[in-house]
């Protein structure tokens, strides 16, 4: 298969697999050690069964993670991998991806890892737009350290470290990402494999940094955090499934819609009627500006999770750091020729002693 015919032009620099792959090609021999029932299992299975679809040489795929339950992920995939230190995976992956455009580099991180200790690296990776796919497992808790509140926990959360309730307002990871100039921002849920894989596919197709927030249930320390989005009784009213080019409608009988308030430009949810049906906002993931995507990230209610958009909120092309870095190297060679060490060391002001 040549680069032109590859389904993922964004991965055209990565060598292709010689033969078709299956899910088991991506399973490592390591015993998976998450708590039984943890949402991480579902994500792992979804990723393992998705990767063959990319058709990439397995040895050219690398998963880099930080520290946390979620960050154990690379051990369970039979690709190259690095389980690094808390919060630093985006920085490490940046060096790897920037120096090796022939690799498909994935980052696995948690809400504490990415947004607390590693917040700085996350925002800079996003603005820099290195070819990285960042999977942020958001369970709204610190799992590995046994249940302290995290930067995505709702205000007032009772945990071991906040017996009277947490005081600090959480981050909205997708708002943050858009503020950090992210070109690709999406959200999905551990339990919906089909949706999860569709988002992974879109992320893989994207050239540059992609941030995928995955709502992940920690059944030990924050069980049911996303039940509103999963329970048949509530999910239709809670979930807004975004599809590019489609009017944003949801709820029972698609009776709810997202509308723009002409006065403020803000977005709001309202019942769709015969009168307003043609005014339902049509989702444009490729809109040049981030404004509408940002407004979408603000729709969800922090506590009930009602009106939570999932899918690709934003996918726009921006210059890609690693490609530009390579271009500068190529330009330097074109302009000055390949570096000659003897010439460099000699410089312009020399004298001889015989």
């Amino acid at each position, binding site marked *: 298969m040549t680069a032109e015919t590859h389904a993922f032009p964004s991965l055209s620099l990565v060598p292709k697999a010689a033969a078709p792959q299956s899910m088991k090609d991506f399973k490592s021999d390591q015993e998976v050690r998450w708590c039984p029932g943890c949402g991480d299992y579902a994500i792992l299975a979804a990723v393992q069964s998705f990767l063959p679809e990319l058709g990439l040489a397995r040895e*050219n795929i690398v998963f880099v993670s930080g520290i946390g339950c979620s960050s154990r992920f690379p051990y369970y995939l039979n690709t*190259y991998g690095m389980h690094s230190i808390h919060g*630093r995976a985006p*920085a490490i992956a940046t060096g*790897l991806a920037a120096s*090796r455009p022939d690799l498909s580099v994935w980052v696995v991180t948690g809400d504490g890892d990415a947004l607390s200790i590693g917040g700085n690296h996350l925002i800079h990776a996003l603005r820099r737009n290195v070819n990285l796919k960042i999977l942020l497992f958001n369970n709204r808790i610190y799992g590995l350290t046994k249940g302290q509140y995290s930067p995505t926990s709702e205000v007032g959360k009772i945990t071991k470290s906040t017996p009277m309730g947490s005081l600090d307002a959480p981050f909205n990871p997708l708002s943050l990402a858009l503020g950090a100039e992210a070109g690709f921002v999406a959200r999905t849920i551990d339990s919906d494999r089909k949706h999860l894989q569709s988002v992974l596919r879109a992320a893989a197709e994207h050239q540059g940094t992609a941030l995928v927030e995955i709502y992940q249930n920690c059944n030990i320390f924050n069980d049911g955090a996303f039940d509103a989005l999963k329970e048949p009784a509530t999910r239709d009213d809670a979930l807004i499934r975004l599809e590019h080019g489609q009017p944003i409608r949801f709820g029972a009988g698609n009776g709810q819609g997202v509308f723009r308030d002409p006065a403020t430009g803000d977005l709001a949810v309202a019942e769709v009627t015969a009168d307003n049906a043609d005014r339902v906002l049509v989702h444009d993931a490729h809109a040049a500006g981030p404004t509408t995507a940002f407004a979408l990230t603000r729709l969800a209610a922090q506590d009930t999770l009602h009106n939570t958009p999932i899918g690709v909120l934003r996918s726009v092309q921006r210059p890609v750091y690693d490609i530009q870095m390579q271009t500068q190297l190529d330009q330097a060679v074109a302009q000055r020729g390949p570096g000659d060490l003897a010439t460099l060391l000699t410089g312009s002001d020399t004298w001889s002693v*015989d």
Partner: protein
Amino acid sequence: MTSQVDVAESTEGEPLSEPSPGAGMLGSGGDRPGSDRPGRDGQRGDGKRVTKLDRVVIRFAGDSGDGMQLTGDRFTTETAGFGNDLSTLPNFPAEIRAPAGTLPGVSSFQLHFADHDILTPGDAPHVLVAMNPAALKANLGDVPRGAEIIVNTDEFTKRALAKVGYAADPLGDGALDAYSVHPVPLTTLTVEALKDSGLARKDAERAKNMFALGLLSWMYHRPTEGTERFLRVKFANKPDIAEANVTAFRAGWNYGETTEDFAVSYEVAPATAAFPAGRYRNISGNLALAYGLVAASQQSGLPLFLGSYPITPASDILHELSKHKNFGVRTFQAEDEIAGIGAALGAAFGGSLGVTTTSGPGVALKSETIGLAVSLELPLLVIDIQRGGPSTGLPTKTEQADLLQAMYGRNGEAPVPIVAPATAAECFTAALEAARIALTYRTPVFLLSDGYLANGSEPWRIPEPQELPDLRVPFATEPNRPDGSFWPYLRDPETLARPWAVPGTPGLEHRVGGIEKQDGSGNISYDPANHDHMVRIRQAKVDGITVPDLTVDDPSPASGRGGPTGGAGLLVLGWGSTYGPIAAAVRRVRAAGGRVAQAHLRHLNPFPANLGEVLAGYDRVLVPEMNLGQLAHLLRAKYLVDAESFTQVTGLPFKAEQLADALTAHLRTADDTDTADAVDTTPEAGRDR
């Protein structure tokens, strides 16, 4: 007075990148300065007397905005090209533009050049150029009586004098009677020289440093073509400024030639005997280090990846390497030091020569990632250009106080090899040596340079490509187990290095991480015995690194009780940038009849294998350091020797005289009649100083 913000960290006050509207000149268009290289007969073309000297120390001092670093650099370049041996000491404030005319705002550049080999920038200037009262006041204490002082009288106004606390004008009240003072209205003369240039007065004034450079160039018979060429290139897109600077430069030269006040000029012959045959250039430590890194990349066949965050005095390496993209060098200016080293480590995982450059505060931030690199057993260079600490400390001053941080500054047992260059030029070979260790043993390596080495410069014999070491190491390409599987921690029995299998290699897919792993398979392991084994094997790997033996310079006749090579009772042992002043002090002491042995460590972890034996061979060991005794501490702990410290943490290098005095005092107190007479260590006692 000092700026509170880190933004203020900088180099010198006259950024080369921001050309000041310079000056034009007294377009007498006369003789090209330097065209009449004087004969060696005591008279030059202008009929003035010529005195021959074997060495000179000049200090240029002015406001941080006066361009003293540029002036010093130019004088240095001409001096290097002329063939003198030389050593320099730039000394400047941390503020970009410290308040004008104040003592903290003084910037200086000292240059020592000679017709023989020298080791230091000199203890005390023979000539001080003081561009204003602050420069005079800040530097006078270092100037020995009898020295020449050239002052810019235009700046000696009531206000300027009062600003630095001069109640009376030192030029008029006899305060400088002990010196040979040349009062020169440098500003007026420069403006006058540039009156036809069309430049505004304020802009014309800015060329006064070039006038001063011209004058000093006349005094010391320096070549001038290079400086004129330099100015024309530097201001290529501002030809009027280029011409103004050249004009001011020539005017300064002509002033020396024509003015009665300068009756004598000086010749310092090239240091022909000091240098082995070869092609030479002048080089600063940071430039040598950057070139060493490029050379290491070429010699290893691995692309260089630098992850770095700007910090004085390391930023110049980032700047330099970013110019060499045609060598395949990738430079990544990260969001912080942690990301800088993280990216370098990520690149190393991918098969690059990963490097991070920083100074002490940055090392503190990188510690956790260095620990990860120890655990991953990947090659990585951590370059620390030490500066005054703790905390922000003295950003532009030198210190050696990060040794213990490099040695121990991580959680857990996390040994990291350490190399340290002794001179500016040696930064080149130190980079290659650090790369050799990192690549051979798959380990992070510290390279400890410092502000003095970084900014100081000296002649460097340019190595021929075939002199450079072969640093190629093979990547793993094949499974290494009988069953066809790959174990990422299956070690080379000799080096204990693990295989380096880079992504993209089919069949060797593996995971590494900072969690303890089983030796061999690399799988996560919490087994107590395995952890004990891993801690010990990581230590053994570093301990087993082959480093050259320590050589001792001990020419004293064997006395039966001295060291392995000679008969001295006292060994002076240093590391890093103290080499020059220590060696100069040792020369003095020996010239005065003192018996002292000298050795200098380039490897601090592991120490050379013969170090214990060397130490045991001497009655006394003195360890001069620009910290509170960190190497002495390591020596005492490891070798149970009574190593004595001699320490200074002023932010400035030791002076040779000060060390010579310390050595002499030691020889005196030692019950050693052979050496008790070693007391005359005046500067002229030895040949260097």
